[in-house]
């Protein structure tokens, strides 16, 4: 029978769709990792969370002039719906336990960007401070560090694009190395 798919040569690109499907149907073949990673990097929802002046730059980066929504990054007010924690600001020892708890409440896969000098190393509070945590990587694992005090929104967007590159390299399926 001429309608048996086994005997029908595959249609060339741009030709008529397979029988039984409408003219808008297209078939995409690719590996699943690529597709899943692309979906994840294009919808990086970040936790609405800021502890110091870096938070002002974070708000600015999310607002209309810099518009992080272009990259699929929008804020979520709950860790349950967030993929990314942007640690924007100084973390004190009193705050550290709350940061850890928020991180633990986020679903996998989850990522952390340390934004600004305070979150990277303690920044201006590195020496002679009894209350500031000297880098948020003492509490939670960090994927991307953004220098600056505070970093400009361009730097933050650059950090998010770096994180997108990291996500695209992720292996979700197949044999584990």
């Amino acid at each position, binding site marked *: 029978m001429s309608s048996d798919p086994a005997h029908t040569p595959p249609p060339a690109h741009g030709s008529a769709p397979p029988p039984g499907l409408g003219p808008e149907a297209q078939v995409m073949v690719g590996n699943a990792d690529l597709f899943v990673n692309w979906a994840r990097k294009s919808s990086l929802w970040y936790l609405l969370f800021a502890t110091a002046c870096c938070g002002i730059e974070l708000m600015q980066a999310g607002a209309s002039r810099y518009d992080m929504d272009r990259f699929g990054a929008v804020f979520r007010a709950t860790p349950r719906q967030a993929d990314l924690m942007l640690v924007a600001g100084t973390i004190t*020892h009193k705050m550290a336990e709350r940061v850890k708890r928020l991180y633990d409440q986020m679903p996998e896969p989850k990522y952390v960007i340390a934004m600004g000098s305070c979150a990277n190393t303690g920044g201006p509070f590195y020496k002679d401070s009894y209350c500031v*945590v000297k880098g948020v990587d003492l*509490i939670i694992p960090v994927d991307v560090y953004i220098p600056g005090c505070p970093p400009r929104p361009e730097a933050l967007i650059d950090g998010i694009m770096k994180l997108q590159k990291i996500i695209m390299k992720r292996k979700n399926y197949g044999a584990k190395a």
Partner: protein
Amino acid sequence: MEAQAIFDTLKGKFGDAVVELQSEGFSPAFVVVAPAAVKEVSRFLKEDPDLSFDVLMCLSGVDYKEKFAVAYHLHSLKHRHAIGLKVMLPRENPSLPTVDDVWPAANFQEREAFDLYGIVFEGSKDLRRILLPEDWEGHPLRKDYKYPDSYHGIKV
């Protein structure tokens, strides 16, 4: 009213409880008061119609190494004048009466002085740490404070 006139008024009312006037290098000048009398002096400064210091602008702890002090900055919206009160305290067990029933705003600032200097305000309605975690050990703005190695497993 000028600082000297305020000092004379207080000296006439409270006698030896008002120790001295520190006007060199201070603006406003400081009236040094004995610790036990600080509440009565404060109430008089607030309620006397010629003084009527209705705003406690700032309450600070001070570490002079050999002793502690608590400094009060007062302002009168009615008369547009200002004065400082200062109370000297011993290094061991520094404590003095609270003024949070005279100026309710004193409560948070007394808690800060308690948190960072360990100065006890007797009779306070709520004397707890305000900035540091409740299980923090020591009072970090004291000049002889020793930093801990870690807090809850995180390096300090």
